[in-house]
């Protein structure tokens, strides 16, 4: 097909649509003979069409291209004139394979980070031990600052759970069992998970942003050249703070969630304060609370290590830090929910 003599805005749009109308795998020969003169904007438009067509799997070839135009196109991308290269589109198996290898590589890197963090934290005290001053600072940021939001969210979750349960249980005259529903749900599942999601949003993103920013400003490299281990200085205090504070926040979340259920049970369903509390105590076993706390410790490790991994993976400029921050939160939440599913399945089949 012929390239228009001048690649103005309208001609370019129509030409692009014509080229892209062809199906993947088709060979399209662009006859450049009508192109009497090609300026920079025209060259940019032609290159865009070629790039998009090749991305869509078309085999694009250029015929009768003037030397001047050839030279101009080659200044932008010499490879664009390489007509014998295979189409850019990968087949789905290649894409799946590449993604799987990327995920496996990331998993190996995270495992290495866990190993290095554990090795650095193995000696808690002494000259080369954990930096407790930094850890205390992180505990304040991770724990104390998160208390209001964790309590508020958990209270609302408790209210929501009990209101939803009430609709069903009242039909059978079993409204008192809302205490069981809320107590067990909060301690085993909702408390640890809600706390982990909040902390992943607050702290996981902060870890990725801090380490990522330090990476692009060469601060991490500077630490390494000073023979200072960035894992010991940056990752260990954050992970230790998370390991200590997330279970505590989970306990607060459990109490707040049960408190939300109590408010609904006592003031909306008229269950009576003592009846609600004694039903909660009867329903809960210590193992329920401990299960939640074990989960929260694992979630803490996941949030800290994933945030650090995303931070250390930053390449490029500030926008890469933004991307790392987002992916740290998303990955940490997915990892926590996957771990939660594994725990729940394990406890279900073993109890």
């Amino acid at each position: 097909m012929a390239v228009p003599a001048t690649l103005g805005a309208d001609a370019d749009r129509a030409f692009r649509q014509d080229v892209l109308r062809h199906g993947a795998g088709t060979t399209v020969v662009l006859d450049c003979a009508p192109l009497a003169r090609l300026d920079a904007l025209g060259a940019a438009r032609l290159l865009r069409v070629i790039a998009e067509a090749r991305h869509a799997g078309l085999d694009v070839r250029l015929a009768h291209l003037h030397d001047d135009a050839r030279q101009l196109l080659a200044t932008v991308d010499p490879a664009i004139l390489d007509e014998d290269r295979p189409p850019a589109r990968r087949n789905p198996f290649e894409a799946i394979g590449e993604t799987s290898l990327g995920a496996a590589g990331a998993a190996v890197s995270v495992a290495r980070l866990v190993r290095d963090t554990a090795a650095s934290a193995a000696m808690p005290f002494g000259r080369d031990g954990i930096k407790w001053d930094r850890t205390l600072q992180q505990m304040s940021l991770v724990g104390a600052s998160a208390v209001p939001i964790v309590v508020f969210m958990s209270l609302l979750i408790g209210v929501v759970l009990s209101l939803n349960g009430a609709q069903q249980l009242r039909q059978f005259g079993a409204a008192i069992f809302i205490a069981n529903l809320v107590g067990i749900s909060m301690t085993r599942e909702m408390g640890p998970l809600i706390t982990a999601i909040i902390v992943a949003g607050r702290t996981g993103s902060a870890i990725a942003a801090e380490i990522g920013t330090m990476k692009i400003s060469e601060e991490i490299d500077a630490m390494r050249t000073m023979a200072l281990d960035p894992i010991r200085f940056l990752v260990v205090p954050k992970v230790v703070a998370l390991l200590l504070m997330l279970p505590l926040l989970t306990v607060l979340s459990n109490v707040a969630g049960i408190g939300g259920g109590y408010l609904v049970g006592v003031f909306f369903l008229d269950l009576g304060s003592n009846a609600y509390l004694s039903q909660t105590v009867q329903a809960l076993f210590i193992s329920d609370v401990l299960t939640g706390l074990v989960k929260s410790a694992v979630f803490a490790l996941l949030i800290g290590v994933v945030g650090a991994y995303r931070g250390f993976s930053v390449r490029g400029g500030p926008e890469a830090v933004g991307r790392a921050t987002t992916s740290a939160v998303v990955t940490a939440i997915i990892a926590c929910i996957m771990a939660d599913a594994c725990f729940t399945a394990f406890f279900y089949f073993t109890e």
Partner: protein
Amino acid sequence: MTAARDMTPLLTVENLVAGYGDQTVLDGVSLTANVGEILVVLGATGSGKSTLLRCLVGLVQPRSGRVLIRGRDITHASRTEREAILRDVGLAFQDAALLNSMTAAENVALPIVEHWHVDEPTALMLARMRLASVGLAGAGEKMPSELSGGMRKRAGIARAMALEPPLLLLDEPSAGLDPTTARALDELILGFKARGNMGVVCVTHELGSINTIADRAVMLARGHVIASGTLEEVRATPDERVRAFFERQLVHGEKRASVADELAWTK
């Protein structure tokens, strides 16, 4: 200290090959640096100067070749050995790379606390002395964001010198600085040389600095050493790229000087 120890070069680079992905940035680079001299590594942008510097401190693992610092191989060292070797090296980054969450004094005190195991107040006092020695007396309590470009570079050099390493590596110390500040930094570097117990490797393409500080020079182009020796020997190398580098720098220098003169005259 034995005579044999004195003969050991401070830094030896042997046939270094390094790169990123498929790209080879350094291809068989060899050089030495000795105590009491300033070795300038020069070359155009993209010639591999900064990668060489990163290889010297183990930030980039070379594909082959080795780097010896006081006779100890950093390229094949374990983590513990590398950390021990790095205590003999100070690297001042091009953009200083100060830790932004700490004051200038805390930045300088960090390696002192960690490696000399002194308490923090004493380390901070020593850090202020180090900062004063690079002309930053009284700036210790400032955050890096409150320092000018030249001050940040000086603070970076003070941090690199915190442990009084025998080998100081400088990455483009005068790049982006006005001529007065650049000259002051050159004098600072000459001051380190005058101590007589250390060597300096300075990566730069600023001809003014090269003329002032270089005892010996190594010129890189596309990852190869194309000239080495004293500055006169490098200048006399019959290589088009060497001649082009010095002539172009000279033309730029003259242009800058004429513009500066013109501005001064119009004032």
